[in-house]
């Protein structure tokens, strides 16, 4: 009960912080979708970091380390230290410059303009939407799993499992609560409220990650005793050994490139005040990733020395550790921190889908200057609400592992990265190349996903093809299609190209 009260108190505080941002709102659609391009370095850092760190980082990384060991840090976190800042600098900064010059709000607007193709926009829009939805599911599922584990047995009169044993708060209820909280502040405050909420929540979950580390390690008898227990029970988790292949390890770098094509990250880039605003996110991102991932990976391997959770239930490991090794007060604080990480991604993702439906579908062809500003905001709000409801309903039926679901989603976005790199840096890139690039991503991703679903190609506990992650083949096929398609078609005119270079 104490834990639940702390979690509810946290959600109330979050709403207060996010809604307080409305005092700075200019009441325009530009402010609702882009915060009037006025976000400074600290909030941009918090927004980008908070948005990229979701249930995947906390719940997923702990669960994956429980199964695979310490190598999980190198797969994602240290690759993120190289690839994410590279994408912020090479892609984000350049897109921000073009976005400010041509007043872009969504990625589709940019690509349609750059390649002078309505068809490309029509092709890209549903693909981006379909790829963001699994990412949203990761958050809602992660929150449900964690809260269920932390509150197990706390309300025997209300919640019991199929066997009649006391269970935790059910996932459907947690999902409904966090979706409602996020929807409330995004609905009223748009991206400015999301940025403020991200700043607040990111500070909270960084502190909580450190607190979790010290609290649980202390309860386990200290860091040395915790590692010793794992060494006695599961020594293979302390090295990479046979659990991760060398080529697999290398190919994970391509997964991180997905940041270059996340629509919600694009929208945050567009909110930046100046090019200098990007410096802090580029520099500080690797350190913040380490601060969050290192405790989570250690908790995952320590859990393997203490618990006997079956591998397929590994997503619940973090919640179980928090419930088992902390006091109810700490348990409430830690769970609030986990929810903070999850919600700091959900808000941006909900908003970006609402923004895309508003600008790329409803207002397509209308001049934004001529459109009634209040109407534009209300269309955005209506779509954000619709996206939240659809995501929530899908979360009730989805049951894939969080880490694996995340990797598939990121692989799709990574497969679109050749599109944005070519658009920004290759004058010879053409419409045909862009369309073939997107189609190649869709075909290769679909084939590989189907193979994984059919249980083919399993190695090191993961679906690999030729020893590497499927993202390698998705990325290569779309890059080759981009180059071949462009070289086989007529280059764009000089006047057009001058607008973008």
């Amino acid at each position, binding site marked *: 009960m104490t834990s639940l009260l702390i979690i509810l108190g946290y959600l109330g505080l979050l709403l207060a912080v996010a809604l307080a941002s409305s005092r700075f709102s200019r009441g325009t659609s530009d402010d609702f979708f882009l915060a009037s391009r006025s976000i400074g370095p600290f909030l941009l850092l918090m927004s980008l970091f908070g948005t990229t760190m979701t249930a995947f980082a906390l719940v997923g990384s702990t669960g994956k380390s429980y199964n695979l060991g310490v190598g999980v840090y190198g797969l994602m976190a240290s690759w993120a230290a190289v690839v994410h800042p590279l994408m912020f600098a090479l892609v984000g900064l350049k897109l921000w410059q073009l976005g400010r010059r041509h007043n872009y709000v969504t990625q589709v607007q940019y690509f349609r303009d750059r390649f002078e193709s309505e068809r490309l926009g029509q092709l890209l829009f549903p693909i981006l939407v379909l790829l963001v939805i699994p990412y949203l599911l990761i958050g809602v599922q992660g929150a449900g799993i964690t809260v269920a584990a932390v509150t197990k047995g706390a309300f025997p009169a209300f919640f019991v499992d199929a066997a009649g044993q006391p269970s935790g708060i059910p996932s459907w209820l947690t999902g409904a609560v966090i979706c409602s909280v996020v929807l409330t502040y995004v609905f009223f405050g748009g991206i400015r409220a999301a940025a403020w909420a991200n700043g607040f929540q990111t500070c909270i979950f960084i502190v909580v990650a450190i607190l979790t580390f010290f609290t649980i390690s202390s309860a386990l008898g200290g860091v040395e005793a915790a590692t010793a227990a794992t060494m006695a029970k599961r020594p293979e988790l302390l090295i990479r050994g046979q659990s991760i292949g060398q080529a697999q390890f290398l190919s994970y770098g391509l997964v991180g490139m997905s940041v270059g094509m996340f629509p919600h990250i694009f929208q945050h880039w567009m909110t930046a005040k100046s090019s200098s605003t990007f410096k802090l996110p580029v520099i500080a991102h690797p350190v913040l990733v*380490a601060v969050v991932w290192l405790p989570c990976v250690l908790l995952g391997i320590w859990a393997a020395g203490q618990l006997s959770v079956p591998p397929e239930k590994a997503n619940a490991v973090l919640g179980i550790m928090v419930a088992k090794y902390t006091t109810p007060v700490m348990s409430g604080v830690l769970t609030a921190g986990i929810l903070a990480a999850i919600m700091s991604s959900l808000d941006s993702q909900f908003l970006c889908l609402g923004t895309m439906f508003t600008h790329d579908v409803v207002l397509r062809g209308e001049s934004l200057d001529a459109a009634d500003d209040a109407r534009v905001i209300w269309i955005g709000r209506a779509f954000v609400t619709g996206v939240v409801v659809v995501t929530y309903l899908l979360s009730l039926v989805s049951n894939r592992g969080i880490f694996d679901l995340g990797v598939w989603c990121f692989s799709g976005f990574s497969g679109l990265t050749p599109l944005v790199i070519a658009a920004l840096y290759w004058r010879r890139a053409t419409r045909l190349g862009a369309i073939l690039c997107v189609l190649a991503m869709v075909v290769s991703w679909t084939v590989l996903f189907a193979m994984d679903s059919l249980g083919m190609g399993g190695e090191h506990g993961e679906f690999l093809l030729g020893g590497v992650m499927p993202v390698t083949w998705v990325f290569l096929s779309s890059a080759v299609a981009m180059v071949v398609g462009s070289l086989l078609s007529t280059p764009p005119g000089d006047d057009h190209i001058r607008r973008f270079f």
Partner: protein
Amino acid sequence: MTRGSRRGLAIALVVLLTVFHHDGWLWDDPTLVANFLPVGLAYHAAFSLVASVVWIAVVYLVWPADDTAELGVEP
């Protein structure tokens, strides 16, 4: 230092960082740093901090100096 050499140095730093990500020599090393941290994990945690230093250098070497100069004028 010319603009070209600054850019070359920045690219070299990022390439070097990428190469050092692949610590094949620690793959099966069970050594514990400070008696609790597996050496492979300690290496990658340190790698994250070094990456931050590399990005400071990159920002110093090649970051565009002025926003408006790059933007040009909308035709």
